[in-house]
């Protein structure tokens, strides 16, 4: 047996601050990330509620916030998008569950660089505080959308919120980039260097693969966003002209000359498209894990799943131009970006096929994590199918900047990724907190959320095809758009119900944390290493023992085995595998 590698010189901490606040333990840091993302998602959700209400009742005077002005609507959508993309969809699956589960699943006592891990979390936390601060400065939060297109984002006088608010927005994103880079570095090193004996790459659970590939994407993408953000800050504050051309704002000629807004779009989307996969890949990993476990069957086509994820990550870096078909790019470039984008359909279809193949003729257990994993597959297909539409320049010219795009990316990148997070929460909650979540309320939460999200986002496709533009604060002033208001009203009611249902989840979460029935070490009868240790795991994960891995991650229904699953550290051989 391999000598336990003392990754961390740190022993189990004693004081409250070192144990729960500035902890070096990856499990505590993972939970910290989880609660940060939970806070962020409620902020983001509240903003979306305000937007939906404003669209239907533009003159309504709301408690606390008062009447929402059109420019405030733009602030709301900017902050909703930014908070959700960075502090929820990037933070929870990777920072939260990746941090908590990855080291245990590969049999390591901690991450490779625990201090860096702690720094990474607290840097993210500072980034979150900075972006929230943008609401409270003069002029309020920025207007330029989460994509931050110049010249709007690059000229201080371009509108309310484009002053200090926009500087805080860029600063927050820069801080977030640095935090994510530290995290990605740690994930890659941990996965490559700290695997237990016998944990070969092709024995890693698909969750580990997904976090590993996500980390590589993050490592290569966030540096580009950081550079782009530095250029934007210089344009805003130092009078340079990277992005800003000769421009007249409110009758005043700006001092800029010759910059190109397209430069930002290229840099931003070179980051932005991989970011979509940073959000969704961990959800794919969790879905694979949960589908296999609850179907009591090996994952269908393990290697194909790994290669499909690698292919998605690889192609993710070559398709950024499909966000820019409207920018006047050469038709040849558009053709190349279009073909490459549709190529992503191949590995995506492989994954979907394999998920269905995994469930085929399985002894399916419909526990809440499984429901969410199936929901993920459903949303992945519904949201993914509109991708090839938008990947074609001729169609994109019609659909660009309409609700079709909003519906597409919310289904695939927003809600599907969120379903991955929900599946992960219900699945790993027993390991993280030592108790089970309430199953009945979990199912009620699932069905309302599934129906609710489809009711919100599916009609958006029709709105988009009917020509309804995104980012308009109200539709009452545009004749052809007023006919679509009843559908928008329906979506607002659906949103209110879906948001209300999320309180079921939060109450279930906190109630179960303290009052839920005690969880056994392996309540789902799963095979991976986190289920071989105690619940919750000790400080060094395996109580001084370094696990040795003898099996692949999804050995269910092995002939000759005493149970219908074989743990990864089971030293016995049962059948050819």
């Amino acid at each position, binding site marked *: 047996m391999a000598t336990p590698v003392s990754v961390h010189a740190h022993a189990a901490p004693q004081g409250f601050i070192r144990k729960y606040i500035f902890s070096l333990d990856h499990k505590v840091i993972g939970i910290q990330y989880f609660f940060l993302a939970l806070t962020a998602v409620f902020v983001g959700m509240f903003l979306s509620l305000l937007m939906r209400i404003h669209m239907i009742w533009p003159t309504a005077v709301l408690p606390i916030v008062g009447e929402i002005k059109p420019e405030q609507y733009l602030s709301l959508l900017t902050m909703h998008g930014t908070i959700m993309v960075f502090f929820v969809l990037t933070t929870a699956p990777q920072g939260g569950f990746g941090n908590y589960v990855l080291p245990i699943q590969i049999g390591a006592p901690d991450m490779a660089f625990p201090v860096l891990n702690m720094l990474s979390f607290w840097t993210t936390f500072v980034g979150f505080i900075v972006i929230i601060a943008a609401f409270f400065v003069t002029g309020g939060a920025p207007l330029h959308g989460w994509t931050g297109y110049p010249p709007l984002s690059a000229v201080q006088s371009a509108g309310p919120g484009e002053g200090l608010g926009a500087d805080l927005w860029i600063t927050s994103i820069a801080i977030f980039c640095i935090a994510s880079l530290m995290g990605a570095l740690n994930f890659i090193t941990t996965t490559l260097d700290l695997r237990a004996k016998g944990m070969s790459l092709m024995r890693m659970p698909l969750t580990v693969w997904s976090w590993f590939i996500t980390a590589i994407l993050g490592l290569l993408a966030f540096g580009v966003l950081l550079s782009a953000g530095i250029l934007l800050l210089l344009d805003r504050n130092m009078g340079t*002209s990277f992005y800003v051309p000769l421009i007249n704002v409110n009758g005043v000629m700006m001092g800029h000359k010759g910059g190109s807004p397209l*430069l930002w779009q290229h840099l931003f989307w070179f980051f932005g498209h991989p970011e979509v996969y940073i959000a969704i890949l961990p959800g794919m990993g969790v879905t694979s894990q949960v589908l296999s476990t609850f179907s009591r069957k090996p994952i269908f086509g393990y290697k194909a799943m790994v290669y499909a994820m690698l292919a998605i990550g690889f192609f993710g870096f070559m398709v950024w131009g499909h966000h820019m078909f409207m920018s006047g790019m050469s038709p040849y470039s558009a053709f190349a970006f279009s073909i490459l984008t549709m190529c992503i359909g191949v590995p995506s279809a492989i994954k979907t096929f394999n998920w269905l193949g995994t469930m085929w003729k399985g002894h399916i257990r419909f526990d809440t994590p499984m429901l969410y994993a199936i929901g993920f597959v459903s949303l992945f297909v519904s949201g993914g199918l509109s991708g090839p539409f938008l990947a074609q320049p001729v169609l994109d010219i019609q659909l660009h900047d309409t609700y079709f795009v909003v519906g597409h990316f919310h289904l695939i990148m927003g809600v599907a990724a969120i379903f991955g997070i929900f599946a992960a929460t219900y699945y790993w909650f027993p390991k993280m907190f030592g108790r089970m979540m309430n199953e009945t309320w979990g199912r009620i939460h699932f069905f309302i959320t599934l129906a609710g999200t489809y009711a919100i986002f599916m009609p958006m496709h029709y709105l988009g095809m009917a020509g309804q533009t995104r980012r308009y604060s109200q539709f009452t002033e545009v004749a052809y758009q007023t006919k679509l208001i009843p559908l928008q009203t329906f979506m607002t009611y659906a949103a209110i119900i879906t948001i209300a249902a999320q309180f079921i989840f939060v109450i279930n979460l906190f109630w179960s944390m303290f009052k839920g029935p005690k969880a056994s070490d392996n309540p789902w009868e799963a095979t991976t290493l986190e289920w*071989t240790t105690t619940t919750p795991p000790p400080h060094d994960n395996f109580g001084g023992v370094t696990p040795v891995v003898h099996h692949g991650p999804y050995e269910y229904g092995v002939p000759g085995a005493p149970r219908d699953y074989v743990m990864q550290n089971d030293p016995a051989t049962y059948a050819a595998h």
Partner: protein
Amino acid sequence: MATYTPSTPIDHLGGIKPPEPPAGGGDDGRSASFPDYRARLRRARLGLICGIATVCMVFISLTSAYIFRQGLPTFDGTTNSYVHDWGSVNLPWMLLFINTALLLASSVTMELARRNAARQAALAPVESIPGVSLGSERSFPWLAITVLLGFGFLAGQWLAWIELHNRGFYVNTNPSSSFTFLLTVTHAVHLAGGLIALLWAATASLRHKTAEARQIAVDISAWYWHFMLVLWVYIFALLGIAR
């Protein structure tokens, strides 16, 4: 502390010999045959490679922006036509060559410091044997010299920026001067980070770190420092050739 128990009891094996786990796992028992610090050194180097990849991405994106902006025709409102507004920056060549020489020299001294630290770490187990003495060999303070040369480079860059100002080139004078300041300052910020790492490594013995721990700190700083040299040569070449 909770105790770990294997989930599968061993008694049901019935004489089946446990199969040998295949190679390919992360540690593969290497940590058993090497001292622990070897594993830590390998891990730290792997982390450094990831960090360098990130810094590379930052500079690759800045370079692509540089090339894009250089070739971009821009609209001139006074003549109502498209023009190329990329001007040529009058670089203080002599000063920059001196700075390059300083950084090159610091890279050499850094390498000597790295090898010195590796030798000390290799000898540390021998010295720990009672009765064995290797003599009080005073090693040359290569690390301190590297730090001095590093500060010298930064001071030289500072002088170069002042000289650019004297020649009329500010950060917003022309796209070319914007990029000149952007690239050199971004490099300087990364180099300053390297200097902090060097100071951290240099004070390792003061902080009662073992020779092995010190070697890891010196080794990582050294490779980062060499990378900073390569990066600087690249930036200098870009600014000098693709003007």
